[in-house]
């Protein structure tokens, strides 16, 4: 099960989708929005996705986990739109007969998601905002006298 949604995520429901009597291990990752980022207090977060491609890339990750770790039961859900501090933006649940594969596959799923899935996070601070991981752009833009379009 792969889902990109504006609704709050329900980790228990998502985890239940991968549980089966043959699986002795279930590993669930929750990505939650932090109150501080690089020393600055975040007051609000916003996620944006290129949805069709994001679904495709998440499905690709699920296939890779199947091949590399032999795990059949994987659920990934990402929330988009505004997400309050302390709330859940990502749930990845992996179940397998034994624990090692479940841990490795779940960790790897999150790593790959953060590398290739077209979803973006904007952190809003007091008096400013930035798109995470776009520091080079921001820095380069400041250096070259350009201002971000959003001020």
């Amino acid at each position: 099960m792969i889902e990109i949604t504006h609704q709050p995520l329900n980790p228990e429901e998502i985890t239940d989708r991968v549980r089966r009597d043959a699986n002795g291990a279930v590993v669930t990752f929750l990505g939650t929005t932090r109150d501080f980022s690089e020393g600055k207090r975040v007051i609000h977060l916003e996620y944006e996705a290129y949805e069709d491609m994001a679904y495709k890339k998440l499905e690709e990750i699920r296939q890779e986990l199947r091949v590399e770790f032999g795990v059949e039961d994987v659920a990934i859900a990402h929330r988009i739109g505004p997400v309050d501090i302390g709330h859940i933006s990502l749930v990845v649940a992996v179940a397998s007969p034994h624990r090692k594969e479940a841990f490795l596959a779940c960790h790897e799923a999150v790593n790959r998601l953060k590398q290739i899935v077209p979803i973006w996070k904007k952190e809003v601070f007091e008096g400013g905002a930035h798109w995470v991981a776009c520091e080079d752009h921001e820095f380069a833009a400041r250096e070259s006298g350009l201002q971000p379009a959003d001020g």
Partner: protein
Amino acid sequence: MQLSVRFFALYRERAGCGLASVEVSDGATVADLVGAVRQRFPRLAPPEVQIVVAVNQEYAEPDTVLREGDEICLIPPVSGG
């Protein structure tokens, strides 16, 4: 030919729109398209920053040749999770 180009996140804000129609010559590559987009939206990214492009929902190389009707999207550094 006219190509529709989508922008998300930082690029959407910098371009001031989520979708633009861009004119390139037939047989143009991804690199050609990026050049045309940069000319039209100079604030998008400074010259030294490489712009990643997805064609038909797949990451594309600069020498990928584009065709009319391709779904093209400029992808700023991702940060989901």
